């Protein structure tokens, strides 16, 4: 459970995020949707204190995060950043093992979990000794996801995780990600500018513009009951996919 309560962030007098509040239920996936520069990434980074809010309060699993040690907090939150952020001088296995090592796991446990996560993300076992630059973009992103999930954090933060991939690769990585059994137990916050991705993955969507939330609700609320012309136009850009999305909404009831 994540609660953001009236959070704002100012950078040198510029309001990047203005009075944002939301609530993500246990096991839910919430999407922060919006154009570049709307404040969605800043909002996400305040959740693991990569950025400190100027005002407001954030609670994760009932604890005020500003009272926790940032390093401890972050080790319990999976984080996938925009440009994968893999360590180029670490092998795939060493990259995946970063958080377990920080948590002082036994080497045997680390190896076992690494092998399992490679398999779950459909990466061949011998990849563990490769370096990131020997992998394709899609494979790198799979490693990043494994790295974020290996320590089984209850919360997962994703910052445009598939943004840098071509459409075909994006679809396949996203599908494999969405089908991970572990994901069902996670509270997920996903940042994207891709309406289709938001509608497919989000239980709850916050549409942001100029630092504020314009509308939040279930995908259907935003699509069928837009509060203003902006919401209508933003989602309307994806109307060529409307029939597929319509089916999904009908199935959800």
């Amino acid at each position, binding site marked *: 459970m994540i609660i953001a309560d009236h959070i704002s962030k100012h950078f040198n007098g510029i309001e990047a995020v203005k009075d944002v509040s939301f609530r993500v239920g246990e096991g839910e996936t919430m999407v922060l949707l919006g154009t570049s520069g709307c404040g969605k990434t800043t909002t996400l980074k305040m959740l*693991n204190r*990569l950025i400190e809010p100027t005002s407001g309060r954030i609670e994760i699993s009932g604890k005020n995060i500003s009272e926790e040690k*940032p*390093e*401890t*907090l*972050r*080790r319990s939150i999976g*984080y996938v*950043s*925009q*440009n*994968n*952020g*893999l*360590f*180029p*001088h670490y092998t795939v296995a060493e990259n995946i093992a*970063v*958080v377990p090592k*920080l948590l002082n796991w036994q080497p045997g446990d680390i190896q076992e979990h690494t092998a399992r996560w490679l398999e779950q993300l459909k990466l061949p076992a011998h990849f563990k000794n490769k*370096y990131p630059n020997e992998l394709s973009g899609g494979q790198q992103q799979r490693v990043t996801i494994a*790295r974020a999930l290996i320590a089984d954090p209850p919360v997962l*933060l994703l910052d445009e995780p598939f943004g840098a991939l071509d459409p075909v690769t994006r679809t396949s990585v996203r599908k494999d990600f969405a089908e991970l059994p572990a994901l069902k137990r996670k509270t997920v916050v996903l940042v994207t500018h891709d309406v289709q991705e938001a509608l497919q993955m989000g239980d709850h969507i916050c549409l942001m513009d100029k630092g504020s939330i314009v509308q939040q609700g279930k995908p259907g609320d935003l699509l069928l009951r837009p509060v203003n012309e902006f919401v209508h136009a933003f989602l309307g850009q994806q109307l060529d996919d409307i029939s597929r999305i319509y089916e999904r909404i009908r199935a959800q009831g």
Partner: protein
Amino acid sequence: MEEQQSLWDFMAQQSGKLWSQTVAHIGLTCISLLIAIAVGLPLGIWIARRKKAAWLVLGIAGVLQTIPSIALLGFMIPLLGIGALPAITALFLYALLPIIRNTYTGITGVDPAITESARGMGMNPWQILTSVELPLAMPVILAGIRTATVINVGVATLAAYIAAGGLGEFIFGGIALNNTQMILAGAIPAALLAVLFDFLLSLLQKTGLKSMRKMPVLLPVLLLLLSSFYLIPYTKGHLLAGFTPEFMGREDGYLGLKSKYGLDVPTVVISDAVMYKAAFEKQLDVISGYSTDGRLKAFDLVTLHDDQHIFPPYYAAPVVRSEVLLQYPELQPVLDQLSGYINDSVMTELNYRVDYLKQAPDRVAHDFLVSKDLYQPPGKGSKGTVRLGSKIFAEQYILIQMYKELIEGNTDLKAITKTGLGGTKICFDALTNAEIDLYPEYTGTGLLAILKPRREQLAKLGGDRDRVYDYVKNEFLKQYKLQWLRPIGFNNAYALMMRRAQAQSLNIQTITDLKNYATNGSHRH
């Protein structure tokens, strides 16, 4: 003229010295590099975090870099004296800029997405620095260390000027003695060391990103190992002698002291520029000075009597290219005018004014000419130009300034001075290559550093003033078409010097006294 021995012979013959100089050179380079890394690396990391401090730190390190190395060594002497400490400090300051700058560039060059994801996973700042930033910046940092190493191997040759050893002893000795083999015996190993160190570090750099994680451990260990080579040849308790590189290699210098007197004192090599001061400050007890040096007076030193006559006469006279004398026949009488006016004590006094009272050489020269009624206001200078060269010390500056005023006052020639032509070899080569027209030379130097006659010939000349002058005059004319004019009058010979107080308390008046004191193993009072 005796044929010069081959380089290989020289190196084989001097292998002991060559080895100890090389070891000292490696030691100096590595110790200073190690300290520079220990200081520069954290400083580079710090300014990568505080960009506002970066320009200041890089600016200061940059200014240090632009100070000429010999000047930097000069600044060190009043603060740190002579020997290894000031040399290492100067080398350390030189190595600092490339290391700080490359550390800064390397760390700020790490992709922020990577450090952010490290933070996002819960690494603390120290873990991010050691596991992510330093390994990724290491190729750039190593490149900086390579630059610093090559600079240091080069600058370390200058350590020989302040009694810190190294291959500069051969290089500067060779330049002073006009001995190409000796120069090469120092310069070639120094160049090879630079190439070798650069190559070794390039191997480290090429080992790839993965092993960069071991580098922070590996490099200091390696450097520490190499540094341990350097043992400072400083023995407290006995007399310590400091001789110039030139003196060390001369038959009428250190070699003669050893063979004729059997003198055996712990010895360091040091530049003439700092030697007197070091003796005054009791860092050295015996030095090889010149009998007309102004600092003799300034620092209250006494010369030891050369009772076995190993130092030949060094009467100064202008050496001129014959073509110039033919072209401007009025020149010779003008240059001869000075003859007879300056004896040893007058020259010492003039040198004292420049070296110690810090009066400008041209001022001192002018005042002297005026006082002797030799000064004439300069003429038109329309007939031609005469180029006057000098070695780099006050006496020569004063002399050529006098010649300049005499020439311009008494002829229609214009005189330009080229001061600071280093040692004998540089002046002599400039003269034979017609880059200058004359410079003041000393009979003894012409004899031993340039003509290098056979032993028998030397014995025949003995230490006789006139015979040496005639021999040098004839041979220079025959071999090089250079004309020695009439001697000025003073004898600037080599002399061993000690502090007056110490010499008196130890009752040392002659070099033989010194030898007896040194071999009897008496301790310093």
